């Protein structure tokens, strides 16, 4: 007999599987990694992992929504392997995931997430709520934690989105490698270069000419470029601005209208005027 297209239990459940579960059922996604904290002899294993999130990602709210910026350098140990990496990824019309960590895992997560949101909308005939989207990413990180413990596949993302309900506003979250999510009011930074970026954004927000939320678009771009350039000054894994190669960070803005990717010419103009 022909295998049924849909399993009977799904027909009765009233809600579809979430997309990662569907992929696992079809054997298209690896199982959630198991955190093996207790070894075969029953002793608690002490494992540690090296932070491998070699990059700098930052995001902050400004007058026109949320700005998300990332440098373009991808490294493997001490080697620069790619200087045009795209670490600021569009997930849907109003959501951006920016990634620090192992690219293979991060890009896979972004793909799963992108399809999850669309799968939910198509099957359930309504948009997934912002809280649902934030949870979905958290769950992917949680499923991946076993790999992090094994020293591979660490991902520490930032998630920026625009919430139309109930109160229209931009929302910004950062995560830890275990999947805990933290909503921030002003700014977030992650990756190896983030300590200096956090310092700059904190200083700017408290004692700068105006707080981050009041900045115009050009001012916001200028601060983002300065912060990434500062991070690159001391962190070898952060590309900053490549002056000779004319490679600029990737900057995207989330607002009520959706996502805009700033053209390189515009970033170059702001850079020339206020940073270089």
């Amino acid at each position, binding site marked *: 007999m022909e295998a049924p297209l849909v399993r009977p239990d799904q*027909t009765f459940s009233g809600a579809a599987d979430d997309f990662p579960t569907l*992929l696992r059922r079809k054997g*298209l996604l690896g199982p959630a990694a198991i955190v093996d904290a207790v070894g075969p002899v029953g002793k608690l294993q002490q494992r540690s992992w090296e932070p491998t999130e070699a990059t700098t990602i930052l995001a902050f709210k400004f007058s026109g929504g949320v700005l998300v910026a990332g440098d373009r350098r991808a490294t493997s140990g001490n080697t620069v392997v790619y200087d045009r990496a795209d670490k600021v990824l569009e997930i849907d019309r109003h959501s951006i995931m920016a990634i620090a960590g192992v690219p293979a895992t991060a890009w896979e997560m972004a793909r799963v997430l992108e399809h999850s949101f669309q799968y939910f909308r198509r099957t359930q005939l309504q948009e997934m709520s912002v809280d649902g989207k934030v949870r979905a990413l958290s769950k992917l990180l949680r499923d991946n934690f076993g790999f992090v413990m094994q020293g591979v596949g660490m991902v520490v993302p930032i998630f920026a989105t625009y919430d139309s309900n109930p109160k229209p506003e931009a929302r910004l979250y950062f995560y830890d490698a275990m999947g805990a999510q933290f909503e921030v009011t002003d700014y977030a930074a992650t990756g190896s270069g983030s300590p200096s970026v956090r310092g700059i954004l904190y200083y700017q927000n408290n004692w700068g000419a105006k707080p981050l939320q009041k900045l115009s678009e050009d001012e916001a771009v200028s601060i983002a470029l300065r912060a990434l350039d500062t991070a690159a000054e001391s962190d070898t894994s952060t590309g900053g601005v490549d002056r000779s190669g004319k490679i600029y960070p990737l900057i995207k803005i989330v607002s009520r209208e959706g996502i805009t990717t700033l053209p390189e010419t515009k970033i170059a103009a702001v850079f020339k005027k206020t940073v270089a």
Partner: protein
Amino acid sequence: MIEEPYRWVEAIANRREYIEAQLVSGSPIAALGYRDGILFLTLGQARQKIFEIYDRIAMGAIGHPGDIERLRMAAIELASTEGFTRSTADVSLRRLVHYSLSPVMKSAFEQVYGAPYLARMLFAEVGERPEEDLFLRVEYDGEIATSGTTFAQTRQDFAALSGTRQSRELMESFLKAEYAPDTSFEAALKSALDAWSVGHMALQTGDAKELPERSAVTKYRLEQLANSGIEAGILERDPSRGIRYRALLDAELRALIHD
């Protein structure tokens, strides 16, 4: 029953008659390709009948809501997993219908001890250019009809779905006579409303063989619009956007209807 082929044929014929009787009351659905996309439209339905399936694919269906739901879920699952493992560009309506949906619907229909799918569906996939639009109608027995070029017919940039064969054929001959492809959205909207009216009139009278008078169609359309809501969705041709489907609101459509 397996040892008695005649009984099997009889059972299939009974089953066909039963399903056709169940589908008779289904309100027609018209799908028309125009310059900037494909329009799906129906009127006066109690529940949603037009759905997004994937980036470039939409579906309209009549039948039992439970069966429509199972088939819709299956189509979305198949398209989503294909798009995830390969690329969204590799999801093709032709493959989805020919290799996945049709064989399963056929075997469900022919296994006379099991329940068949009580549904009739119309799928469309928007192309880069109007010539590349694809429309496929899938029957409860897995039969597929296309509006694309085949050995027997030239291309048509429209398709119709209705409760009876007669009603559907009248809608098709109306659109063949009246509808010019590569047109504006307003023109497509008007033709879709008229085609729906032709199909719905045929369902009411039951034995209509000829297309009704132009004026009668207009009168019927105005009457129905006064009493029923419009359900519509479009697949936009704009290649700069990944997701092409958009549901249209009754109010925004009424603003575009002028006579």
